[in-house]
């Protein structure tokens, strides 16, 4: 448990078992993308944008709207953050890092440069994930 690294095949298989139990017990598959949509709706509402006229946020009984929160997936996403933190701290693997090693070797140590690309990558990735049904 306190070893820094587990065999990825073993960790993956255990994640598979966890998924089976989750589907069996609570009927939930693992996912995170939809939470970004719901949280985006909450943020829009909080800065005064009315989401009640948006087709995506309101269709399917508001499944993708702010009103769907809090739900299983939001707690799952929060849990992933917490679990990673607990795991990293307990095995002395927690490290504040703004620029990944591989990036630094190729593109330099600027956190701003890395931040801009990460931001736009995020925009495109989630847009694509939602379009593909993820």
């Amino acid at each position, binding site marked *: 448990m306190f070893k820094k690294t587990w065999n990825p095949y073993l960790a993956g298989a255990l994640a598979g078992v966890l998924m089976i139990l989750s589907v069996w017990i609570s009927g939930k598959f693992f996912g995170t993308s939809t939470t970004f949509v719901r949280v985006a709706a909450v943020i829009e509402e909080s800065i005064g944008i009315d989401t009640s006229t948006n087709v995506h946020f309101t269709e399917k009984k508001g499944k993708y709207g702010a009103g769907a929160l809090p739900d299983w997936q939001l707690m799952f996403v929060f849990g992933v953050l917490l679990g990673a933190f607990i795991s990293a701290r307990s095995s002395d693997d927690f490290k504040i890092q703004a620029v990944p090693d591989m990036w630094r070797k190729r593109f330099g140590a600027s956190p701003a440069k890395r931040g801009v690309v*990460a931001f736009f990558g995020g925009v495109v990735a989630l847009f694509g994930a939602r379009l593909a049904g993820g």
Partner: protein
Amino acid sequence: MTLGYGLITGILFGILLQKAQVLRYDKQVGAMRFLDMTIFKFMLSSIIVSAIGIYLLKDLGLIKLSVKGTSIGAQLVGGSLFGIGWGLLGYCPGTAVGAVGEGRLDALWGILGMLCGAALYAEVYPFMKAKIITLGNYGKLTLQQALGISHWLVIVVFALIVLAMFYLFEKKNV
């Protein structure tokens, strides 16, 4: 209760992701560059185990599966965009969140970007629904239905292909 299950499941999954070292830009982009297949080892092991378990539960009548719709247009365009974005960000949506838990601050910019991407998608959704999702739309479709074979045959063939890939990964030491 549902919220509690979500939290506990997330914590356990976060621990597994962290221990397998998949919450790292270097591992994710390393896989895209065919240098380090750690994330594929994790992901494919997980898929095989859960496919077997979930179809077993389904065959025993303990759960019902709700399949997502197949749209060639949406999945081709969406998947390609996701790939480009994933390559630039170096984290997928779930691992970006976990990466922050590990101290990787660049993932925070990715999360901010993903929230903007989600808002953007909600804005252009009517267009996507009318023009892209309708392209090659087959509705709820599975491979076993399309081929008219048992889901167990699909799982066995898939598992054999994955095991061959694992053999290759270990042989090439990636």
